[in-house]
């Protein structure tokens, strides 16, 4: 599927800006971003429920801008499930087949097969109102699966489930994708879902695509400040600072970073050749802050212990940082500790554009 310069405006609001995206067959792509970033609008345009204000959308080699949803060979699972309240589960699942002219007895057989796949056989005669949230969600999935379409669209299908069920369904969906191998496009604001389930993630903010890459790339090489601050739990610390250039001749690279009282020498080759001195944002992941020994000192603030690890908040003479430490760390609030940074894992972003200045930045 190809999005070419796709734009969508509602009145005077631009929901989606010049989106260029190419999705390969069999991929599991997540559209990830905060509320209002345009991800649901993009999904709906793909489904045919909204028409692009500009640009073109292709499925296969067909331009589908004006093709009604019924003719796009697409199935969709809605956030609200949208099960037909007046129909039984069996009729709900059978509906798409009925609309496409599949007759009995084939229709019932396919319904039963899908029900078996999702463990819904005992519920076939119930109405949606009599089902639990998890069961309703499976019926919605069943209704999408029974048609065996080219593409599956899922609009935050897990957001209405409780945490445990959500974790369970995540695994189920990954398994499903592996088994049927069709393209799946998944909209979510939960980065954990996106990271664990996708082959590639498209991060969006305010209608603009920020980065489209594999989960590993997005984690290790975020293309800009927004992506860096969005992915990761706990979130990366982003510090304002200044990039300077000097030649010390002590084996370190020419660039140094200063954030408040914190000063770090960057290794040679970390930054791209085009980087120039000026205001920057420095990104440090908590796991790259090592407590115990090092060149820097800080006062310990709040320590959040989750059992298997601790998140330690540090105040390095006015510069806030977070560090990840093992669960049984003896560090306590008010102590002064020494820490070091894994400098080869620092992320540097231009303060004005937010773009990544590291040498490994890829084009999105």
């Amino acid at each position: 599927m190809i999005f070419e310069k796709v734009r969508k405006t509602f009145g005077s609001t631009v929901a989606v800006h010049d989106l260029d995206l190419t999705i390969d067959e069999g991929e599991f792509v997540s559209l990830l971003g905060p509320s209002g970033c345009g991800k649901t609008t993009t999904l709906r345009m793909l489904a045919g429920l909204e028409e692009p204000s500009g640009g073109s959308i292709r499925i296969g080699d067909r331009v589908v801008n004006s093709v009604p949803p019924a003719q796009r060979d697409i199935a969709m699972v809605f956030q609200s499930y949208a099960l037909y309240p007046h129909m039984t589960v069996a009729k709900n699942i059978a509906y798409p087949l009925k609309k496409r002219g599949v007759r009995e007895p084939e229709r019932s057989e396919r319904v039963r097969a899908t029900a078996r796949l999702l463990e819904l056989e005992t519920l076939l005669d119930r109405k949606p109102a009599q089902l639990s949230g998890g069961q309703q969600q499976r019926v919605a999935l069943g209704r999408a699966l029974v048609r065996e379409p080219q593409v599956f669209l899922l609009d935050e299908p897990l957001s209405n489930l409780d945490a445990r069920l959500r974790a369970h369904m995540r695994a189920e969906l990954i398994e499903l994708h592996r088994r049927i191998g069709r393209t799946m496009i998944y909209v979510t604001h939960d980065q954990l879902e996106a990271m664990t389930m996708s082959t590639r993630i498209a991060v969006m903010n305010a209608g603009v695509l920020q980065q489209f890459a594999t989960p590993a790339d997005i984690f290790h090489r975020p293309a800009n400040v927004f992506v860096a601050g969005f992915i990761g739990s706990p979130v990366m610390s982003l510090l304002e600072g200044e990039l300077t250039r000097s030649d010390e001749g002590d084996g370190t690279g020419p660039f140094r970073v200063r954030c408040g009282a914190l000063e770090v020498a960057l290794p040679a080759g970390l930054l791209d050749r085009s980087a120039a001195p000026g205001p920057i944002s420095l990104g440090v992941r908590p796991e790259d802050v090592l407590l115990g020994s090092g060149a820097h000192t800080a006062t310990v603030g709040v320590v959040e212990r989750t059992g298997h690890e601790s998140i330690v908040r540090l105040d390095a003479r006015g510069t806030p940082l977070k560090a990840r430490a093992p669960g049984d760390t003896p560090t306590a609030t008010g102590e002064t500790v020494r820490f070091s940074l894994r400098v080869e894992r620092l992320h540097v972003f231009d303060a004005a554009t937010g773009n990544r200045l590291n040498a490994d930045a890829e084009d999105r």
Partner: protein
Amino acid sequence: MNASRARTIWSIVAWTIVLAVVFPLIWMIVTSVKPQAELFSIPPTLMPETITFEHYRRLLTETPFPRFFRNSMILAVTTTVVVVALGTLGAYSLVRFKYRGRETLATLVLFTYLMPSVVLVIPLYLMMAKLGLANTLASLVIAYTTFALPYALWLLRSFMTSIPVDLESAALVDGASRIGAFVDVILPQAFPGIVSTALFTFILCWNEYLFALVLVNSDSVRPLTAGTMNMLITSFNIDWSLLMAASVMMSLPLIVIFTFLQGTLTKGFGAGAVKG
């Protein structure tokens, strides 16, 4: 003051008023089963000393009343069918489609409330005369449709807006056309609302007076309202027993609808009225 004492006080106060409000209707029923002689006794008796159905018998056998009843029934049912059909489609169009002039149309619906029926009646009278439809049930069906449709649209719109849009979207993605989605999703979901609207329209048509008065001038075509009032005017002596019996019979459909479907009727009204 504790809860159950408060409840008793409210019950007494409220029910006293309700009975006062309903009293005229009770009196109507009581009068219709009193023999003529007792009717004119002074002081009037609250409960009938003897009960007779003589007046009903006379009403049904010696007056054109059955004919009036039949006319009203045909008229109300036909108009309801037409209005509900047009109204459902129209309401769906107003609620789910986007096209130029849609907002203006919605506002125009409000302007129909402007029209006093006396003003409508004159041009309609002329139109029916020209079309050669004067003094026919068809002319009344057309006339009633013109004023019942705005109310039906108003009610149906409020019912349809409460149906989640996702349901139709799901149907569209599943392979239905817009019309298919309408039939498979909207109609079943809006069904209680459609029933409410149909009942309301029926009552509206059943009770209408002015158009029946002006557009029809022969007993064979007259509906109940105009017919009954005509009986009052043409007879020399006002026969109250007969008229009360006629009133009770005229209110029968209302009583039937109310007994079985009070909930649906008022729910629609409440929802529609607040949105306006």
